[in-house]
């Protein structure tokens, strides 16, 4: 890919945009890694674009954001610590082809030593040709319910006891963006409140708690539900559990909820019920584990052994799902097909909503003027397909068979316009 000078104005033409909750036919302007408004460029700066790109009627949408991904391509973020950097960069690069431009590497329930080792090394990065950007670490555990551990190793699950213990277990939290906690655990509410005051988002999940526990957590600052339906009490009409947070009238702000739309972790009917109940809250996550991108066989997640057969990954010797091996673009396609949502709604679930969860929607997850130019060119003739991935205005991935991104010089440098 040719390298474009950072101050060049690039005008993407012959495209449609996912903007303002709908699809509009409009040109798309980028400069200095940001999406810009061409109107002041015309009337104030009085210049035209330096380069134009013909998008051949592609659909442009913000880059996907995956806030729950445990590893992939043979690497796991919670183990293989000596290969951590290699693993993160392999995953970051690999997921560009799935349309993900930002992600939260997720660390499952692990011994304290792992947190102390890993957390300082997984820094936030802006993303680029080398791979998707890191928005912050997602810590899923160890302060979870032993009854709802899912694939997490039970021996490393911890009781909370107090804020100090949380800090002792985790170590330095500077690189952490999101923590999943079971709200019914004694001491949880205080910890949630404390973490929020430090700017870390909190999610409820892997919980045996009821709706009241969930509501108390939200009123103390929790804003997300980790993989709705999975690793929590099922919805009951007299005891809705955490699922009831989707419609609770006793919380001070609406919650977002993660959903793994791989056709395995959530029944399509459940997906539809959740979406129809609270459409603005749905966040697509992959919860992908080390086997993603590898195919069938034996792999590990956290400290556990996993068997992958077809599209399913299960803990060896059990029927428990060990995490998913789905890609984000697959989730988007599945969501459209199974939940009957519009293309715009599905894209928002993978872009705007996760950006809102992370408090980053002023810069990520939209095509608004001033946002980072992390975007995708999609084909929507048929199921959605990622053609090109851009980070900071630079093309970082082109699907085989996609049109080459050709930058056309708008006017020769030596030509002057005489007045």
């Amino acid at each position: 890919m040719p390298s474009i000078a950072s101050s060049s104005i690039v005008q993407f033409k012959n495209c449609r945009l996912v903007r303002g909750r709908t699809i509009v036919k409009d040109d798309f302007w980028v400069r200095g890694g940001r999406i810009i408004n061409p109107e002041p460029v015309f009337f104030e700066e009085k210049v035209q674009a330096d380069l134009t790109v013909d998008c051949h009627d592609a659909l442009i949408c913000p880059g996907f954001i995956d806030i729950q991904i445990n590893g992939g391509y043979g690497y796991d973020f919670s183990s293989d610590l000596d290969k951590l950097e290699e693993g993160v960069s392999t995953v970051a690069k690999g997921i560009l082809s799935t349309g993900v431009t930002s992600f939260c590497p997720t660390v499952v329930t692990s011994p304290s030593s792992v947190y102390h080792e890993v957390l300082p090394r997984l820094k936030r990065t802006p993303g680029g040709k080398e791979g998707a950007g890191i928005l912050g670490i997602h810590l899923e555990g160890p302060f979870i319910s032993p009854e709802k551990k899912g694939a997490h190793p039970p021996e490393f699950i911890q009781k909370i006891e107090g804020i100090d213990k949380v800090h002792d277990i985790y170590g330095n939290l500077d690189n952490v963006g999101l923590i999943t906690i079971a709200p019914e655990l004694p001491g949880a509410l205080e910890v949630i409140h404390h973490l929020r005051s430090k700017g870390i988002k909190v999610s409820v999940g892997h919980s045996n708690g009821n709706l009241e526990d969930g509501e108390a957590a939200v009123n103390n600052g929790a804003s997300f539900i980790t993989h709705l339906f999975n690793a929590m009490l099922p919805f009951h009409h007299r005891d809705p559990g955490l699922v009831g947070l989707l419609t609770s009238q006793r919380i001070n702000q609406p919650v977002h909820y993660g959903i793994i739309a791989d056709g395995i972790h959530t029944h399509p009917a459940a997906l539809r019920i959740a979406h129809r109940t609270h459409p603005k809250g749905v966040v697509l996550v992959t919860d992908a584990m080390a086997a993603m991108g590898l195919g069938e066989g034996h792999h590990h997640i956290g400290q556990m052994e996993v068997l992958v057969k077809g599209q399913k990954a299960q803990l060896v010797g059990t029927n428990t799902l060990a995490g998913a091996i789905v890609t984000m673009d697959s989730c988007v396609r599945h969501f459209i097909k199974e939940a009957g949502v519009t293309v715009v709604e599905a894209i928002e679930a993978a872009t705007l909503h996760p950006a809102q969860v992370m408090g980053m929607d002023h810069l990520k997850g939209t095509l608004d003027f001033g946002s980072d130019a992390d975007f995708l060119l999609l084909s929507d003739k048929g199921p959605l397909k990622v053609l090109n991935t851009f980070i900071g205005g630079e093309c970082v991935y082109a699907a085989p068979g996609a049109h080459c991104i050709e930058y056309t010089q708008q006017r020769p440098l030596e030509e002057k316009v005489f007045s």
Partner: protein
Amino acid sequence: MKSRMNKEMGEVGGSYRSYGLRVSRALLLLLLSVSCWPVYAVAAASSLCISTCGGCPCKSDKFKMRLVILEDSERVAEWAARYIIKRINDFSPGPNKFFVLGLPTGGTPLGTYRKLVQYHKAGKISFKYVKTFNMDEYVGIPRDHDQSYHSFMWENFFKHIDIDPANAHVLDGNAPNLETECQQYEEKIKEAGGIELFMGGIGPDGHIAFNEPGSSLVSRTRVKTLNQETITANARFFGNDMSKVPKQALTVGVGTVMDAREVMVLVTGSHKAYALHMAIEEGVNHMWTVSAFQQHPRTIMLCDEDATLELKVKTVKYFKTLHDIHSCLMDQEPQ
């Protein structure tokens, strides 16, 4: 080519060379002036000029008022777009020779802009060597307000074409000194070499740009206070909050538009019919400012059927008989 253009544009008159004919023509002219057919009179006068000149270099199509009547506003938009394209392409603009176009805003020219954008995208017209001057802009609303004329021009025209932004001039209603802004606008027009073709619309009260009834017919670009009718009509675009509706605007003057080498006024819809009648069948009057163009050497009044509803049948019939001649423009797509 030129005589064909003359025919297309429906000019009245031929060339009368004999003295006898000249005398009877003068008498006819007197008769016509008395019967208040200024359009016909102007046309006749032009041919009189030609015959007395007897070989002077003034072109036979130098002075004309043309009334082009088309079926509906869609055809008006198409004709106007094709005419602009033809004028620009015939002018052969280049880096040292810009075509200067005066432009309006509002519902009437919207269709024309759409067609121009379509033809531009089809490669039939480039605006690379075109300079534009818009007629007007509100005072005191942000440039990017969705009701500003900057926004109108950006959304409907500028963003779709290849005009150099430095050559797209719109009055700045937020300039620190509005009088200076107006003066500088006049100067910029002069520096650009004057306006080759000014396209405009007409208000129901016969105004052109914001030159509302009572405006001086020799006015220049200036600040105008809007009348109550205009403000009330605009309220719906500002959430019906009267405090938000602009009370003033910057506008080119009647004199400014009269200085253009050619003027094309679009008139569509029955609500403009009376204004069209006052514009061309009555006298020049500052209460109907567009009537000033009766005294412009080269004007086209481009109308749809509905806009002619208040004209005399004989006026309409006369110009319609010239339809066959100028409909060639509609038959031929821009090359």
